[in-house]
């Protein structure tokens, strides 16, 4: 028996091996998670089959499947998916376009860093959900309060991570930059930014994760559609089969978008940040 290989991270030994081992690794990469998934479905089925919980409190896989088809046919699910994705995208883009430059600036200025770090940390540890009442009073109902909450959830970790990354750039890069006359804006775009890009991508993934968790809660209060609203409505109608549908979609979409963001780490000019 050979040891199972960690998927997506071929060790030196795997690379040295023959292509058959490579194929085996690829098959395992899909086979192992599929086995876990099937086992989970099976447990879920058994639990509902023996009526451990009443049917209204834990819907069976079959009931969820039926409800999923129904939601898709009614077109509501697609509509909710688009609404949620839109809000997260807008909120996330706003916090990235403000948070990354803010982090770059703070990272370069010691006194600004000293001045702002406690404040940024304070807000980072404040759950974005605490802002819900303000969000609704300030932005009323619709996309805006949700976007605001997404922004509050992702701006602070992003700015802080970028700042920390800039502050720890090896000084040798700046000395080299000086030798070759990099100054001002060019220094920022050609040296500082690429030097922190791998860490910025990592923090984008992390803060996207937070944003995706927050959107569900945000939509439960301030919205008339969206995945979070869907769950809320299912709860009100005691349609937990529908709620589980939404949960599955939320989980899958979250994973899918993280996959997309992971593609950024495959850019050739950031590989160095993950390989050494």
């Amino acid at each position: 028996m050979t040891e199972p290989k960690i998927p997506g991270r071929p060790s030196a030994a795997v690379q040295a091996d023959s292509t058959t081992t490579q194929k085996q690794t690829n098959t395992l990469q899909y086979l192992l998670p599929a086995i876990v998934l099937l086992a989970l479905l099976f447990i879920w089925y058994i639990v509902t089959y023996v009526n451990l919980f009443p049917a209204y409190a834990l819907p069976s896989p079959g009931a969820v499947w039926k409800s999923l088809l129904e939601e898709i046919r009614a077109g509501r699910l697609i509509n909710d998916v688009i609404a949620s994705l839109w809000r997260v995208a807008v909120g996330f883009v706003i916090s990235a376009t403000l948070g990354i430059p803010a982090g770059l600036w703070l990272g370069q200025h010691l006194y600004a860093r000293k001045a702002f770090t406690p404040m940024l940390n304070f807000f980072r540890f404040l759950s974005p959900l605490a802002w819900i009442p303000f969000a609704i009073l300030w932005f009323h109902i619709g996309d805006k309060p949700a976007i605001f909450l997404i922004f509050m959830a992702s701006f602070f970790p992003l700015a802080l991570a970028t700042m920390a990354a800039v502050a720890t750039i090896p000084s040798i890069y700046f000395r080299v930059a000086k030798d070759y006359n990099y100054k001002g804006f060019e220094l920022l775009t050609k040296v500082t930014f690429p030097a922190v890009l791998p860490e910025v991508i990592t923090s984008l993934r992390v803060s996207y994760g937070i944003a995706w968790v927050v959107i569900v809660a945000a939509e439960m209060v301030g919205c008339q559609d969206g995945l979070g609203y869907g769950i809320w409505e299912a709860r009100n109608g005691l349609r937990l089969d529908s709620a589980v549908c939404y949960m599955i979609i939320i989980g899958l979409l979250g994973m899918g978008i993280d996959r997309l963001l992971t593609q950024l780490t495959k850019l050739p000019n950031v590989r160095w940040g993950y390989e050494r």
Partner: protein
Amino acid sequence: MFVGAMKDKQANSRLVLDNVSHSFGTLHVLHDMNLDVNPGEVVVLVGPSGCGKTTILNLLSGYIKPVSGSVIREGVIRTVYQHDGLFPWLTVSENISLGLRSVKDAALRNKEMLELIELIHLEGFEHTYPHQLSGGMRQRVELARVLAGDSDILLMDEPFSSLDYQTRLRMRRELVRLLEKRHRTVVFVTHDIEEAAQLADRVLVLSSRPATVRRELLIDAPRPRDLADPAVIHAMKEILSELGL
């Protein structure tokens, strides 16, 4: 011609330490140091570790200002570092092209790039990133980068000390060959006595902190010099005895 013009310019380069003293707080690092580097000369500084060799290079590069005395710097100065001096987000050719930033003509720049890649024998590695190269290859890229374009003076801060012994021997030979093709003024800091004896026109043996020049040694044997070359062996003996080893 491009290369010819550079040589003339390089002949006008100046690098002088005039009565320079330096300290970090209460730590007195340099005391009344005088150094006049002739254009085209290879000056090697050797001395016990922690004696202030790197401080001298930092003063010469303008990275720090001396507490007293003056530093005269004329010409384009570039530094080769011990390691990690390449930008990891740029490929080999992109890193080298930093050295060609002052060359405005794109055709000329491409021609120079091809020449440099050929010079350091890294054909086929143009689009490789530094982390995919060996230590010796990386240092060769650094050499190409500092030699590119309009540089006059090269400061080398133990550039080969993180390499294994055999690679180090090869890189010394490589440096001699490159300087043969592209003349530059060089100030080279090392703790490696062999390296000093093989490379230098002039060796300055430094005392321990605060650093002063204990001994100046001229070596006029032609390069490349074999390790067993009598001139090299003689120089090594002199340096060793000066260091009390």
